[in-house]
């Protein structure tokens, strides 16, 4: 039987899914063990047990100075920035995407400009950003926006352009104005794609958030990682990395579920 037709059973499939995770864990444990047996105070690959106890400490013990649990404070600070940045980008991306997609004049004006903007590496512009937007929360949110907005605009406007012309014409024959076409035909059909696009841009958003926090912040997940990197506190870094990964995963999954639940009409059940 051809390989492409050989399917694993349910139990074997579950085993296969778990396999690479287990292998990665074992490989890490062995690597850590080798380094630790050579140098017991090696910090690079802390033993899994060390990471666990560090994680427990981070999650439960309040900071002596501020009496707060830094881990949750960092998480909260980062999440607020991330959600603000992504939320504002999603909103602007939708509005500008609709305008570009629907109105030929706006399209002529902005499409080329946004295409060029999307090629600018935002990290290189950090100094200017910080000057213009200050060093407060705003600049971090703005970096996220600058980083993902051009992509969102391009993606969403091209989706608006993909709406069959027939549908727009149909709406026109029903007496719809440009405004009604925007809010009742284009916008609702854009929504599932918006969620898709937001899912795709969450990765870059985290990246920009971490980069911004590395340079100017006094709390946040990225800030903490860069702070303790100076001491190579890999147990803390790994805890934070695992946490960020988990957060990213949950967000992605949540958006996927939301998309399925909120837009039943995207499923072709025939």
């Amino acid at each position, binding site marked *: 039987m051809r390989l492409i037709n050989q399917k694993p059973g349910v139990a074997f499939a579950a085993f296969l899914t778990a396999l690479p995770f287990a292998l990665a864990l074992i490989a890490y444990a062995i690597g850590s063990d080798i380094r630790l047996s050579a140098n017991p105070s090696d910090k*690079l690959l802390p033993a899994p047990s060390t990471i666990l106890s560090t994680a427990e400490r981070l999650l439960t013990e309040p900071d*002596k100075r501020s009496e707060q649990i830094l881990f949750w404070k960092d998480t909260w600070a980062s999440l607020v920035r991330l959600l603000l940045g992504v939320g504002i980008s999603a909103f602007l991306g939708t509005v500008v995407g609709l305008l570009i997609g629907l109105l030929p004049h706006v399209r002529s004006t902005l499409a080329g400009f946004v295409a060029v903007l999307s090629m600018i590496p935002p990290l290189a512009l950090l*100094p200017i950003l910080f000057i213009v937007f*200050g*060093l407060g929360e705003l600049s971090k949110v703005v970096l996220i926006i600058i980083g993902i907005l051009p992509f969102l605009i391009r993606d969403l406007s091209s989706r608006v352009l993909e709406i069959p012309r027939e549908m727009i014409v149909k709406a026109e024959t029903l007496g719809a104005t440009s405004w009604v076409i925007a809010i009742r035909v284009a916008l609702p059909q854009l929504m599932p794609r918006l969620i898709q696009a937001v899912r795709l841009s969450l990765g870059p958003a985290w990246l920009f958030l971490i980069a911004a926090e590395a*340079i100017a912040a006094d709390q946040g997940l990225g*800030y903490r990682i860069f*702070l303790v990197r100076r001491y190579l506190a890999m147990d803390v870094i790994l805890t934070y990395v695992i946490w960020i990964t988990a957060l990213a995963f949950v967000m992605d999954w949540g958006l996927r579920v939301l998309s399925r639940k909120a837009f039943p009409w995207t499923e072709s059940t025939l």
Partner: protein
Amino acid sequence: EEKTEFKVAWSIYVGWMPWGYLETSGIMDKWADKYGIDVEIVQINDYVESINQYTAGAFDGVSATNMDTLSIPSGGGVDTTALIVGDFSNGNDAVIVKDGDLAALKGKPVNLVELSVSHYLLARALDSVGMKESDLDGVINTSDADMIAAFATDDVEAVVTWNPLVSSILEDPSATKLFDSSDIPGEIIDLMVVNTETLADNPAFGKAMVGAWYEVMGLMAAGDEAVLTEMAEASGTDLAGYKAQLASTEMFYDPAAAVAFTKGADLPTTMVNVAEFLFDKGILGEGAPSADFVGVEYPDGATSGDAGNVKFRFDTTYMQMAADGAL
């Protein structure tokens, strides 16, 4: 112009930790209230960014070294005054190798934060054995945040960096310190610099800053463990670690000592050396015709460099007030 709200930036470094304590303990607010102003002290993760921000006008003052002040704000045309001479590095910056001596660096690459005081220290270290940077296999710009990890890789033979990284790296049994800032005492100076114009228009700003600073210096000199512990933790280490870093820092707890150092005869020599180093690396900008392009003024009114383009001033007025108990 006159104003009542001021912002200063600082970044984490052993000699600047008091700034964080000033803000969290309320001592800064106390002194600001005394002079009827408001001073906000902002911590910035990235040292260079904090100086850039100051240069661009986002802050009225910033913690910086003498060298970076000369190259960034002064070189950028922002007339800047050293309000507080806090300390000089006395072993905090070091050249560390895996084996060999300075002469053995010949033909090897060195990892450091390029164009920083580390770079300057390396130049001075090579001077001391009659070598030049071109004798090396180049320098590799390496972020300070990754210096420890970098030293742990096989590619890296030598690094130049500062504390607390130095002490972490030296924990590695293979690491040897070849040269450190105690070999060139008084050349790497940690300052609080402020905009000259702002200071001139608002003497209250200078008074509040200096007054608050020396109150904390008093606590530190007295060995107040609670204060030191708080600074230690803010810098990500513990009390013992922080004390070890302080040991290689020549803190001027006493304003009189700071005044004396600033008025000392060695400072102009140091600044000329630094200016030459900066010019040599092209850091003073392509517009700079010579190392003398930027003028530096000393407490006695003497200048080095271009007297017509003085952008960096060492001013002991406020520290003297503190020494005199006049604040």
